[in-house]
């Protein structure tokens, strides 16, 4: 009997009075890596943000269970404290708050903060205000840095490689892979380009189209099919 860290049951979510996710069922096993593919606007980011509890996404029906307990009425910070960590695709600028302050909040191990910052080339950005004048790569590295320091049991990554050059993808991919292997959290990763698959060992893949989940299977195989035939093939599959 597999142990699940996250179970999504019959979840229907709407935003701005429009249904985005329809009757979703999805389970994430402990220490597994689930890749979520899907065309733009299919609802992938909505799913991740709903799990985190970001406002604007209303659960109309269904429930989300984290380690067996419903979290749908918990505020964001309590979900984070239970062990859910998110890497945002478009993090907001936070005026006046420096990366250093967040790092010190997330971890009391100074050495660890320093070495991770060095590995991610962030040591010179410590005094910068969060996401102000960060390049695409810097933003992603800072997101990854924060979420790793948070040591979540479930990692939600929303397009970790978008807007990042290949050099940075390889840097981030290596560190992410090490973290997944060492700390063994479960992860749910949205990817468009599939580049991240070259660095980590994904367990499962699934495709989301029009707010519903299809085609759960081997991630590399799914990605190859999408690469060759586009999401049109997935649609025909439905």
């Amino acid at each position, binding site marked *: 009997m597999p142990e699940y860290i996250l179970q999504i049951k019959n979840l229907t979510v709407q935003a701005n009075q429009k249904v985005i996710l329809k009757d979703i069922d999805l389970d994430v096993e402990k220490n597994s890596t689930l890749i979520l593919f899907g065309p733009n606007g299919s609802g992938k980011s909505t799913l991740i943000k709903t799990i985190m509890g*970001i*406002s604007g996404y209303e659960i109309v029906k269904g429930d989300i269970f984290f380690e067996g307990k419903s979290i749908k009425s918990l505020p964001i910070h309590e979900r984070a404290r239970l062990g859910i960590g998110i890497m945002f695709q478009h993090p907001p600028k*936070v*005026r006046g708050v420096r990366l250093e*302050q*967040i790092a010190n*909040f997330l971890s009391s191990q100074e050495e660890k903060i320093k070495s991770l910052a060095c590995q991610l080339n962030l040591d010179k950005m410590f005094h910068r205000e969060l996401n102000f004048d960060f390049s695409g790569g810097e933003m992603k590295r800072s997101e990854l840095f924060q979420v790793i320091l948070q040591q979540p049991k479930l990692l939600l990554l929303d397009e970790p490689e978008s807007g990042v050059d290949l050099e940075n993808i390889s840097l981030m991919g290596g560190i992410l892979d090490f973290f997944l292997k060492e700390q063994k959290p479960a992860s749910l990763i949205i990817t468009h380009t599939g580049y991240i698959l070259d660095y980590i060992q994904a367990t499962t893949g699934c495709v989301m189209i029009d707010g519903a989940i299809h085609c759960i299977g081997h991630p590399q195989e799914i990605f190859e099919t999408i690469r060759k035939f586009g999401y049109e093939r997935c649609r025909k599959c439905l």
Partner: protein
Amino acid sequence: MKGLDKKLNEKEIQCLANAGLDVGEKECLVSFLQSDDEILISKTLNPGVEILPIEEALEKYPWSKEFYGKAFQILEEDFFKDTKGGYFIWVKKGIHTYFPIQACLFLKKRKFFQRVHNLIIAEEGAKVYIITGCTASYASQDSTHLGISEFFAKKGAYLNFTMIHSWREDTVVEPKSIAILEEGATFLSNYICLRPVRKVSMYPTAVLLGNNSKARFTSLLLASRGSFQDIGSRVIFRAPQTSAEVVSRGVSTGGEIVARGHLKAESPQVKAHLECRGLFLSPQGVIHAIPELETNYQDVDMSHEAAIGKISKDEIEYLASRGLSREEATGIIVRGFMDTEILSLPQVLKKEIDNLTAQTVKKGL
């Protein structure tokens, strides 16, 4: 400070600490304390620095009379003459003080009208840090503080002045200050007012008379409900190759802030920037930013930016996703906004002021 406990009780001494005045074990090399119109401390252990009650100084050093009111004459402005007390600080030529000079003006009695005239002279090449704490005791209902300050930074002098106001919700405060800068002089003014006050209005001015002189004004303001803070900073440029920066950060938790700034170039080759940011933490409150740039010369580089807003939901939720509660997220954003890094403080002072700001901001939320 020895003997002080005979003049002030414990609660009053705590008031002084709130305004950043260290009256504990640590001896300060140069310090001054005036309670209402009584001067309790005026001492210097540094032969390079003279500190005296102003009346005494004018007698002891007849030359100082020349400076008394001079800053106002330069601007052709009138000033209030019926003052009692105030300090005279004279930093001699080439003297550098590492430890800040402490001065404190204390309101002790009810309905007292404290009116002081301060005179600060930094001679050629001197470098000095001054911290002034102005505060009111628990028993000083409905008092008024009027403070006139004249600063003279002579050739190449560096004058760093930090003023911390910590009044009562029924105190009325009107400081009036002018700094005169000679060639190559630097004047840095830090103003911090985080406690409730009925009304504080001021428009300190720096006049850059000499080439290559520089001024910088920084203000950190927190206006709680019932407080009115009308805080401006003005720089008048009367020589080329001069520069200035005015930075103001104001948080309203229900009170009113008027953040003024005026850069007036009466000379070409001036570089100046004015920045004003306001943050609302309450649906009540008023923040009014009035930045002004003025000149007849084309060859100047002057700019300003002003922004007012509240903390966005996205920012709070972003920090919440890292595990910070709404209160913690708000707190860290406000502390960041009121960042003492923007002040030009010496390290030894920075920590104390950091603590002071953190504590007050926490209480204010």
